Every structure is written in C-alpha cells, then in structure tokens.
C-alpha cells in the first residue's frame, strides 16, 4: 500500500449486516454503511431529523460545547428551505468569473511558493493557508483576515489531549461574535453584513441566527477542505502518471475532482436523531437514539461503484455522497469543487512531480472502525515542470 491510499475499513460490516455501532459520550450511534440506506435515510428527514438539540447530530456530539444552532444545517424542512433560500445564491458565487480568477491567483501563489521553498510540511504550510485564504473569498472579506484563522492551527475544536475542546471552540465562537458586532456597526459587502440584512418571515435575522450560519461556514469547510487538498497532493505524489494524464486530458478535470472527493470522503459521516421507532437493515432503532449516515462507507459500496477502492480519474457515473445527500447536501460544495478543480489545473500546469519525505497518518476511531481520513503531517518537495 502506498502513502496516498485510504483503505475502506467498513467493507466487512457493510457487506455482512449493513451497519456498525459506536458509543459517543453515552449517546450511542448506529452507523449506516450502505449507499442505498444512507441516501434513503438522508432523504427521510421526518424520521431522521437534523433539528434536534444543537450539536447532537454531529459526531462526536457537540452538545456540551455549543448552544448555537447551526443554520440551515440543524434545521428541518420547511424552515430549512426558508433559511437555505436566503444564502444559496451567495454560496454559488464561486462560479463567477472574478471569484474564479482570484482563487486561481491564490492557488498559483501557493504552488509557486511551494516550488521555490523546497521542503515543506504540507498540512500546516500549504493546505491550511490555502483553505483559509480561499475562505476570505467565500466570505468576501479582506485577504489579510486569513492570517488570524491560520494562527488558530489545524484543529479548531480539538486539542492534543481531547477530541472536543470547549476552550478551543470558544476561540471561534467569540471571534464570530466580535465580527458580527463589527459588521452591525459598519455594514459592508461581506457575508456577515448580508446575513444581518436578510429577512425571514418578515423580520431580519437575529444575531444568534447569523452566528449559526457563520459557525457552519467556518467549521464545515475547514478540516474537510484541508484533508481534500492534502490528500490530493499525496495522491499525485504517489501517482505521477495521473498528473501527466491531467496535463494530456484537461477535459477530465471535473470527473477527476468528483472521483477524488468520492475516494477521500473528507467528512466520514453525519448523524441524525431518530424521531420514531424505525428499522434499518433488519435492525430496530429506537426513538430519540442516533444514526449516522456514513458517506465514506457508502462511497465504497461495490453495489454502486465498480472497483470502489480504486481511483478512476475519469469515472463516468459517480453518484457519490461525499457532499451529503438530499435537503442538507453541502452548501459549500461549489466553493470546495472550485478549489480542487483549480488546484488540479495549476498542479498539472506547473508541477512535474512531488516527493513525499515523511508522513504521519490521521486516523479516526469510530467504535470498531479505524479510518484513515488524511494526514496529521506530510513532508513533501514539489518538483517544477521543466
């Protein structure tokens, strides 16, 4: 196995029974592993709700570190649609030409810097800065603000000792409170200001609602984008012929992005709270317990994907659920796809090969399953084309 591979730890359980079980802070979770079950339950919001106590659908649960409801993520239809309609257009801005151009400049700058530096630690010196700077575009705020986010380090909710660290999470929450106050005092064209001026049901959004959208925007797109960027570089380091292929066949870029996202599945799973006794895979699930929709397992389901453990860059039919599925599918997906598409384009244009000098894997533990989701650190050298 080479460094870039992400093995599928769910295969046996997915085939044998279709689910796994784990405990999480005494609030156990039944993990759904099959593509069909995951999509079916993601769609059935009445039985498997998102609008539970704030933090409860996240795994590990954030109920002890957060009271603010993330919006629209922790809201069920029909209110979910009302909120989502407010911000959907904003989150499609990454398709605009000037946004794309600015993102291209950021990625080119990052790659040029990496090429000139020689050795670098990819996660902290490339992926985190890239993710943070790109986020200034999504929020439409000054580029320099990224320095603050970079200084927080790769883990906003985690510390060395613990999976969930309330003190670290409060750094983000307090920061967002301050930024909302600033935008209220002096409105601009940034996301905070746009939200503060938005109306639902004939009233403006409350500060708490604005905070809920902002926490989601920060938290949802941080580790996920960092892992996707780092894993992409690791993949092309281990598979240099794939980089050559992208150079030869730029028309497969879109499919390559979808395939890498399927294979990496940066978000392993997301929970739902069960509103009434139900049955999945001949397993009864009790009211007020939790299930999780295991995107990572569904994305390796051999019933849907041929050779699921292989990266097939031009996979033609690829109904992956790496961005979730149905009502709650990822709001930041357009931004994330653009980052990856541009990253691959610039890599193909400027980089001949990448050497991995050392790596430390990032392993998640979910009950009986251990899943590699990316890297804690990855020391590399970029070699220029010509």
């Amino acid at each position, binding site marked *: 196995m080479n460094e870039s591979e992400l093995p599928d730890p769910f295969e046996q359980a997915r085939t044998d029974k279709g689910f796994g079980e784990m405990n999480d802070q005494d609030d156990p979770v039944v993990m759904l592993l099959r593509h069909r079950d995951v999509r079916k339950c993601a769609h059935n919001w009445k039985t498997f709700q998102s609008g539970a106590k704030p933090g409860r659908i996240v795994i590990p649960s954030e109920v002890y570190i957060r009271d603010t409801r993330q919006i629209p993520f922790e809201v069920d239809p029909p209110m979910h649609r009302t909120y989502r309609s407010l911000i959907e257009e904003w989150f499609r801005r990454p398709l605009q030409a000037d946004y794309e151009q600015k993102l291209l400049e950021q990625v080119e700058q990052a790659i040029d810097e990496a090429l000139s530096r020689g050795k670098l630690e990819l996660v902290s010196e490339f992926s985190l800065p890239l993710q943070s700077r790109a986020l200034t575009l999504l929020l439409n705020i000054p580029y320099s603000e990224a320095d603050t986010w970079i200084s927080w380090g790769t883990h906003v909710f985690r510390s060395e000792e613990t999976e969930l660290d309330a003190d670290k999470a409060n750094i983000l929450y307090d920061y967002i409170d301050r930024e909302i106050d600033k935008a209220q005092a002096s409105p601009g064209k940034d996301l905070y200001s746009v939200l503060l001026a938005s109306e639902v049901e004939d009233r403006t959004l409350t500060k708490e609602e604005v905070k809920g959208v902002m926490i989601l925007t920060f938290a949802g797109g941080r580790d996920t984008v960092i892992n996707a960027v780092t894993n992409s570089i690791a993949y092309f380091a281990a598979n240099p012929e794939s980089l050559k292929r992208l150079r030869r066949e730029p028309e497969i870029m*879109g*499919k390559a992005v979808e395939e890498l996202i399927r294979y990496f599945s940066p978000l392993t799973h997301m929970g739902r709270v069960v509103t009434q006794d139900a049955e999945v895979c001949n397993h009864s699930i009790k009211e007020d317990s939790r299930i999780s929709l295991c995107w990572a397992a569904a994305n390796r389901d051999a019933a*849907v994907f041929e050779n699921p453990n292989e990266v097939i860059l031009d996979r033609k*039919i*690829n*109904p*992956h*659920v790496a961005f979730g599925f149905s009502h709650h599918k990822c709001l930041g997906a357009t931004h994330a796809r653009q980052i990856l598409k541009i990253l691959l384009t610039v890599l193909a244009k400027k980089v001949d090969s990448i050497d991995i000098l050392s790596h430390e894997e990032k392993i998640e533990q979910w009950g009986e399953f251990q899943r590699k989701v990316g890297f804690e650190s990855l020391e590399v050298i970029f070699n220029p084309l010509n």
Partner: protein
Amino acid sequence: MAKITFITQEDEKIVTEGDSGSVMELAVAHNIKGIDGDCGGVCSCATCHVHVAPEFFDKLAAASEIEKDMLEFDDNADAYSRLACQLQVNESLNGIVLRVAGM
C-alpha cells in the same frame, strides 16, 4: 443539429441548438436558470433535473438504474423526469421541450 427548448420555473422559454455533449452542458452553456450541473455530469448531484414533455419521453434512451435511483429521492420527480446530464444531444432530440424542475 438538434433544437432543444427549455422552460424555466419562471415560464421563460429558451430555444437552444446543439449537436454534441449532454443536454445539461447545453443548458449550462445557455445559462438556463435552475440547471446547475454541479457535479459536471457524473450523476451525483441531481441539479439538472428536467421534466420531459410527454410526447417526447418515449423517444429517449431509457434511464439507467443509477439515474432512476437518483430521481427516486427527488420530491419533485414525476413519471417524465430525467437528469439532463444523462441525455446526449443528437438529432433524435430535435424539437424536444424540457421543463426545468423545481427545487
């Protein structure tokens, strides 16, 4: 060359012409509102859902299981629903009318 007509949710009628690629790509190239094609046509996002005018529906190549599964979970799907990314533009589509599905 096939003439393909899109009708948006706002009842705007846009007549396009194409001879290759998918119907989703044709729609995106013409900025048809409501056809986003987020995943680029690999059948993972369902943001290119259209209702085919009934008289044309049977002239289309049948939907794959994957496409049918995708539509099954779309609340706005009906018997004439298709994903535009799975429809190839060719002569046989000449004159077809596609109504963009709601969200």
